[in-house]
């Protein structure tokens, strides 16, 4: 078993009711839930694999494919929608090389949409690696993505 996984398991007892926190920790570590770790979780908790899969697929928070190094969420909530979210989404997608939501092949970007970030006064808004950017225009989106790409490069 991978070391990262055993480290996570060390913090739990392997009880059924720990499944969700375990899934969360595993996803934090891998950015998604790899098949093999799902198998290991099943063994660790002594719960059938198909049950673990059932639980994980029930929650929107769990992913089964790797996400990109940069995670962009475009808000599609009512306020953002009214203030131009569709255009923002299009602009973000075009700038990271995607057609729509998804992950770029080089795993550089994952683009998702959400129903409200909770800062409607700043509509239209997006989060870029968890950081909120509001009052956006197409122009600002372009600059933001460029600036962030520059940052990553120099790190």
């Amino acid at each position, binding site marked *: 078993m991978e070391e990262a996984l055993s480290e996570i398991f060390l913090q739990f007892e392997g009880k059924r009711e720990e499944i969700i926190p375990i899934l969360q920790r595993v996803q934090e570590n891998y950015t998604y839930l790899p098949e093999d770790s799902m198998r290991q979780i099943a063994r660790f908790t002594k719960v059938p694999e*198909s049950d673990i899969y059932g639980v994980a697929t029930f929650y929107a928070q769990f992913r*089964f494919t790797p996400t990109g190094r940069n995670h962009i969420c475009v808000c599609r909530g009512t306020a953002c929608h009214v203030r131009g979210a569709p255009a923002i989404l299009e602009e973000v997608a075009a700038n990271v090389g995607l057609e729509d939501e998804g992950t770029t092949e080089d795993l550089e970007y994952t683009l998702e949409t959400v129903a409200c970030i909770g800062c409607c006064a700043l509509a239209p808004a997006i989060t870029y690696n968890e950081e909120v950017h509001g009052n956006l225009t197409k122009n600002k989106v372009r600059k933001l993505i460029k600036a962030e790409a520059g940052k990553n490069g120099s790190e």
Partner: protein
Amino acid sequence: MSEKYIQLTIDGTPISVPAGTTILDAAKEADVEIPVLCYFAHTTANGLCRLCVVEVEGARMLQAACVVAAQDGAVVHTRSPKVERARRTLLEMLASTVDISESPELQALVAEYECFPERFEGGKKRQPVVIDDNPVYLRDYSQCVMCWRCVQVCADDAQFTYALNFSGRGFDTQIATFFDKPLTETTCVFCGNCIGVCPTGALKAKREYLIEQGVAPEQVLELTRLKGRKNRT
């Protein structure tokens, strides 16, 4: 040790049953038939489909007869207008989202309750593709009513193989294997219990399917032979 008995009335018939008996079983004693869909005598009742609802005087909501225990002194109506309306709506919603063309029992209920599924016309249908991933049976989940029986017999109610379970949620809920793997790559032992308990045409023996398709008998045998497979560790 003497069992405690309770008295109740079902559709006007007074009846006495041991405490803890479900309304469904009590009704059977009174010769009253209550329609069921998810309930199956040999699997754990979960009260999923609500087709068995009945009206209990004084209760705020309709009660699922297959899981609710009869109470002493209860007055139960199994065919009141409220009950009929609830069942009719349920059946209409089922018939408009699920393909019931190979489920004669469901069709009979749709007719009996004078359902009009067309009133939900244009609603989204569940239309996943047929899964043909093993030599024993096909899974056509566009016919699945989510009764959960197959999952239960695969798990603690019979086989203890745990190959099948629910995946997803809401409209996208489906019976699935671990990571949607072909059954041949799961713990499935092809016992056939799931096919046996499925109340619809969702699970179908492959031989039956091939014969329906007009495939010659010798070929059917060839196509459905279970090749020796390695057990996963």
